[in-house]
């Protein structure tokens, strides 16, 4: 009998849960298991990891038996690559900039312009104007209105 993946969505979902469950068990290896009577810190997460892997195996193996729907939108062309990667990267960049005290104002401008790049058509003039307006609004509300003690620029330390 030849095994054929009939439902790629379920197959990969199963794999993902197996990985997550395995990760949980791996990370819990240093935590004391204890017994059912005296549960150690490792007891609950290890069991959960095992159960999650179990679900992963069931979901993944059913993918060989039950036909999935026609178009699952899993094809490489059907992922929203640009918004997905650009938005998460921009947000991470914003986090780092705030952490290194680059300043609230420049970090926000980077965030807004970066986010705007996630859209398939970028109108530069509009985007820059938007970033200035939103930053001004945010500074007015958060720094002056709510009195958040954020450094506005890197030089104003």
């Amino acid at each position, binding site marked *: 009998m030849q095994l054929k993946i009939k439902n790629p*969505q379920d197959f990969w979902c199963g794999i993902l849960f197996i990985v997550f469950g395995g990760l949980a068990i791996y990370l819990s290896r240093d935590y004391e298991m204890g017994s059912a009577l005296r549960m150690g*810190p490792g007891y609950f997460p290890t069991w959960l990891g095992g159960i999650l892997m179990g*679900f992963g195996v069931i979901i993944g193996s059913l993918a060989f038996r039950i036909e999935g729907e026609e178009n699952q939108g899993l094809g490489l062309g059907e992922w929203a690559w640009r918004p997905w990667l650009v938005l998460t990267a921009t947000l991470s960049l914003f*986090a780092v900039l705030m952490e290194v005290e680059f300043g609230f104002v420049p970090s926000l401008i980077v965030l807004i312009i970066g986010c705007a790049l996630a859209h398939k058509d970028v109108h530069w003039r509009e985007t820059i104007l938007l970033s200035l307006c939103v930053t001004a609004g*945010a500074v007015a509300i958060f720094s002056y209105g709510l009195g958040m003690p954020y450094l506005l620029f890197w030089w104003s330390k």
Partner: protein
Amino acid sequence: MEQLLQNLLLGFSVALTLQNLAYCFFGVFLGTMIGVLPGIGPLATMAMLLPLTYTLPPVSALIMLAGIYYGSDYGGSTTAILVNLPGEGSSVVTLLDGHPMAQQGRAGPALAMAAIGSFFAGCVGTLIIALVGPPLANIALKFGSPEYFSLMVMALVCASVVGTGSLLKSLAMVVAGLLIGIVGTDVTSGKSRFTFGVPELSDGVGIAVVAMGFFGLTEIVKNLGSKQITPTILQGKIKGLMPRWEDLKICFGPMLRGSSIGAIFGPLPGLGGTISAFTSYMAEKKLAKDPSRFGKGAIEGVAGPETANNACAQTTFVPMLTLGIPGSASMALMLGAMMIHGITPGPQVMTARPDLFWGLIASMWIGNLMLLMLNLPLIGIWVRLLQVPYRLLFPIIMTMMGIGIYSLNSSGTDVLLMAFFGFIGYILVKLGCSFPPLILAMVLGPLMEENLRRSMLLSDGDPTVFFTRPLSAGFMLATGILLLLFTRPALRKKRKEVLTEEG
């Protein structure tokens, strides 16, 4: 009866202070504003605005958050009526007759009727919570750890069974959520778990961070990736806002039935507003003298489901407030907010913090009244908001999310985590998983572990304790029956039909 009046009086004395009235108003207003934006449901709205409530005193914070919750629900209906785009699940039903009404130039009455229905349901819902709450909390006070554990299992299974998507995936998401809930310092042993040496994680992952990553960020990615639908926004001025007298008369029955349906479904875990609204719609269609009017602008088709949805939204507070167990992801967020303010959820809230319990309930009635009054003068603003192109809107939403999360602890780590959950979230969406069970489980994770631990101590490590104590056994039995029912192929098919029809 006298007790009830006294309690409600206490509630109104709390809710009617100038400060709390203001926060209630802010909540309702901001909630409606964000809820109006297409593609952003109550959950994403709550997650986005949650940080705003952190610095407030506990009662005000919860009043504002509750306002955000039903405000955004109402905002979704506004969008469904004015634009042919449903904001979230339950407004799909409102759209069926609401939008045709708008096309016939009766957007005003449709919106007003939705607000009147919501207010009506709000009154009924408030009364029900006031009546059912205290006795339920009294029963819950007798619960031991095994009962709590079984009840939580039931709530989580319920939420997975009725949600969209595959049952197995939802159950797996529950387990994943429990694991996320474990991150942080273990209460009993003081051991840091799953923190990867990051000090910010020792208090656990914030529910706002996860919810915003999964609901906010993932939603925006999805919206940007989907083929751009150009919404047909209603052109021209909306006139004749008030419904006619006949409209009100026709709608009285549907509103009455709608609130009963919603009030029955609301307290049950997992059964959300969408199912209530849909049931009410089907009931009205069956009862109508001329069912063919439905779908073409029948005002009962707006009033009934809207009332049912809101009655459900109100009564979902019952298990959260009296048992400390949320029945939906939105209530999980409320519960998370309570814990952030140092309130231990559970049946003792009603006796330990009566001001909070009754104040919150009274504020919901006031908030619904505000919605009714706000609705008409503000329609113009919402229409204009809907005309802002998405390419300008989403960077603003992202900025709000970024600042909101950063401001929680003034820490970039939280923002990084949100980005991470957004990243994973999109993969999970692509693989057909849904998030509400995960959010629910995440909040319940530490509670479940604690109650499991205590149950085991109680029973000398014997796991049959969950099946030998009568109440606990009842919950487990109900869970088993639910699972059996929903794994039966016939029912599974039916469930799929209902859910896909709902969108």
